[in-house]
């Protein structure tokens, strides 16, 4: 004890020493400057963060939500993968969310995030994510942090250049990464790629009020691989830009065969023009099959509909709608700056960054300044549309975001760094190393007209030597840097789920003020809801047994159920009667070949259970809810198939005693 006090006092003296040094705001030497920077990421216990960071979960299929600057993980939102923790994809209400034209697809690869915008700035209403593998786009409601809509994309494969968004959320897009045979001729030799494989871009319209998605049109394109995209903004509003690689249209060993040409393309789409052609009836109706799933937040229930038609615009019938712009070596990012004037390309295999000018693109189109055509689509002259090139910025430029002060920040995969450069004169201003192999980066509001700047976050692919080892696989990670000074400064490393691919960040106030705390029981429209314990009951319908059950701290009604027989299919419809924030109840049954339910206050969810043996099975609440949480339990008895035992149920039934009347 004495020793401890001695140590502590020594330590305090030491801290005071540092305090004195830093207090003067003149960091000297590494030790003090590191301490001084790290403190900017420190959010004291009980204090809120400044930004929400929505990060894609890559191959986990989920979206994760972190606080900035602390890097604290707040929530994992299940989107394209089942999540037994929350019952997503397991409860009867959420199963339809994962339906596709291929049947239920319980996993996907979520790569990019787009947040809804109004007038070119984030409005905090919805987040969108793409499924890469079985092409889909999801919409997440930021009032509830729930996935409320998923639309499958027909005529598409590897939905990678997606879900980028226009400045008033008119459209989110879905560009196919893999070109594939589409239409009637599907069974073709792979070697006939050049003749038979096509690429499509899908424009998904959003309802202004509800955000409801609907595929407005697709554009049919040559069989290149679309990579990323950005909408124009401000002066370039009405245009969309898509990077593409494999203009060689190779179908094997792409690492060599898709790197033959010195330049690939950025495709410029005049979507206002496309709308005109659509109105003029230039689109062709194609019969397709795709699922459209939506979650009703009053019924707490998803519904899946199979749609069977899509309208396709062919550039052959629609002149002046699309143009190719040459871009060096397998472009990845094509990012528009906050003014909408500059489009920054970045060739993964290039050692410079080309910056295009929207004004010059318009001039080149007006004067038909083409260097030829690609499969009938005009190719603009590189020199005519180029604002300039950032020379020797680093190796492997991937993605660029902006701070709103005329500066751009580009991630470099091969040289593992972020490079800051000025858009006007293309001068490199600063660079910092990342640990390691950065993919995308994120600046709060970076893709919008008005970035908040302040931080840049790197999403890295490799973390060896940054964290304690955990077997052959290490956590993936993000790194937070401050950008509000002249120099970028590393503040924090934080681990992430899945593969953090792309992310967006938004001021906390835009979201937290609208956050839903409970589902109101009065608004619960689930057809299986029990509104009040009096309505709880068990009903047999043929071999189906429906348990209408309520939960509240600290019991279920009913909690004793008998009369279930082997061969029955039991539906537990559980309504959580709580009306208090942060009091979910869980529900689990022994031996259920399913997950648990996690039911929010005022919500109804249904678990399907097919008992496969005779006996008495316990059920209980999984979410610690009160001092009597452990008492929150019940039994269900399963009898033989031939049993005559009628259905009976109760809670709190005691041995008979005279009941007091009212």
């Amino acid at each position, binding site marked *: 004890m004495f020793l401890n006090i001695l140590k*502590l006092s020594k*330590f305090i003296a030491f801290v005071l020493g540092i305090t004195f040094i830093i207090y003067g705001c003149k960091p000297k030497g590494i030790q003090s400057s590191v301490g001084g920077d790290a*403190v900017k990421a420190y959010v004291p216990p009980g204090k*809120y963060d400044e930004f929400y960071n929505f990060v894609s979960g890559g191959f986990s299929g989920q979206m994760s939500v972190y606080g900035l600057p602390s890097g604290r993980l707040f929530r994992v939102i299940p989107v394209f993968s089942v999540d037994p923790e929350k019952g997503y994809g397991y409860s009867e209400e959420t199963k339809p969310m994962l339906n596709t034209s291929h049947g239920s697809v319980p996993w996907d690869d979520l790569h990019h995030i787009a947040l809804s915008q109004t007038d070119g700035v984030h409005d905090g209403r919805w987040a969108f994510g793409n499924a890469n593998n079985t092409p889909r786009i999801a919409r997440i409601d930021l009032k509830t942090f729930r996935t409320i809509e998923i639309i499958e994309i027909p005529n598409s494969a590897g939905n990678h250049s997606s879900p980028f968004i226009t400045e008033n959320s008119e459209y989110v897009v879905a560009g196919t990464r893999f070109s594939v045979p589409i239409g009637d001729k599907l069974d073709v030799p792979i070697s006939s790629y050049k003749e038979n494989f096509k690429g499509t871009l899908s424009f998904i319209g959003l309802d202004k009020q509800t955000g409801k998605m609907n595929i407005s049109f697709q554009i049919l394109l040559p069989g290149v691989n679309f990579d990323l995209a950005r909408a124009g903004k401000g002066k370039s509003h009405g245009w969309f830009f898509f990077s593409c690689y494999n203009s060689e249209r190779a179908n094997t060993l792409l690492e060599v065969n898709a790197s033959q040409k010195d330049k690939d393309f950025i495709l410029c789409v005049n979507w206002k023009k496309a709308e005109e052609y659509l109105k003029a009836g230039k689109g062709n109706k194609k019969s397709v099959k795709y699922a459209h799933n939506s979650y009703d937040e009053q019924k707490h229930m998803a519904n899946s509909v199979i749609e069977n038609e899509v309208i396709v615009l062919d550039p052959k019938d629609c002149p002046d709608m699309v143009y190719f712009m040459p871009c060096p070596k397998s472009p990845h990012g094509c990012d528009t700056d906050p003014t909408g004037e500059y489009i920054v390309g970045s060739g993964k295999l290039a050692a410079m960054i080309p910056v295009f000018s929207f004004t010059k693109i318009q001039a080149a189109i007006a004067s038909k300044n083409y260097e030829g055509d690609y499969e009938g689509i005009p190719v603009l002259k590189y020199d005519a549309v180029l604002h300039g090139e950032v020379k020797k910025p680093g190796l492997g430029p991937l993605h660029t975001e902006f701070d709103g002060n005329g500066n751009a920040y580009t991630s470099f995969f091969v040289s593992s760094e972020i490079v800051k450069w000025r858009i006007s004169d293309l001068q490199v201003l600063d660079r910092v190393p990342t640990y390691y192999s950065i993919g995308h980066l994120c600046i709060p509001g970076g893709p919008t007209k008005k970035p908040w700047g302040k931080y840049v976050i790197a999403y890295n692919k490799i973390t060896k030597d940054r964290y304690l080892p955990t077997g052959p696989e290490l956590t993936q990670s993000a790194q937070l840097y401050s950008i509000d*000074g002249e120099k970028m400064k590393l503040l924090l490393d934080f681990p992430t789920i899945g593969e953090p691919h792309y992310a967006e960040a938004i001021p906390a106030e835009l979201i937290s*003020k609208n956050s839903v705390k409970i589902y109101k029981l009065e608004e619960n429209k689930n057809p299986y809801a029990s509104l009040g314990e*009096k309505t709880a009951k068990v009903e047999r319908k043929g071999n189906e047994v429906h348990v209408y059950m309520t939960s*509240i701290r600290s019991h279920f009604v009913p909690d004793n159920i008998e009369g279930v027989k082997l061969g029955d299919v039991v539906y537990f419809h559980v309504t959580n009667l709580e009306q208090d924030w942060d009091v979910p109840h869980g529900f689990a049954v022994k031996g259920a070949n399913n997950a648990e339910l996690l039911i929010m206050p005022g919500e109804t969810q249904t678990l399907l259970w097919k008992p496969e043996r005779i006996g008495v099975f316990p059920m209980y609440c999984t979410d610690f809810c*009160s001092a009597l949480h452990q008492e929150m339990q019940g039994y269900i008895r399963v009898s033989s198939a031939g049993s005559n035992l009628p259905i009976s149920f109760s809670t709190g039934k005691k041995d008979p005693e005279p009941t007091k009347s*009212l």
Partner: protein
Amino acid sequence: MKSKVLNAIALLMVFGILAISCSGGVQKDQKPIDVQELTKNQPEVHGTEVKDGEITFASPLNAEWVKSGQNTYDLKCLACHKLTEEKLVGPGWAGVTKKRNPTWILNMITNVDMMLDTDPEAQKLLEQCLVRMPNQNISKEEARQVIEFMRKNDGEM
């Protein structure tokens, strides 16, 4: 071990102060937003404290209130409160309008956190029941109707 924790706390506290004192040079001229305050201002049906004299009783009972009071009871109260003297999760309601004054009951329904934090009688009940009565998002008007239903339950006409 303990001293390490203390050290860490001391270090963080010092850095906390530094963050404030040293940030002036690099911060943009942004007003700091108190997100904490923002979430508190969300519309949530938490009553403000009701004072004595704000509720009055009249006879005969308001039949409409009794009916809507019972509906609220069925939906949000019955799970924990019986209409007899029997305690379930919470105390039974028989006799409650004789035992407690109406202001107390109303605050208990609409303002439960305040009551559990400050009122000795409410705290006694918590010790017996061991479950904090949840806020069930009941408005003042609805709570008044519930009290009318309680009066009916206690035999008033």
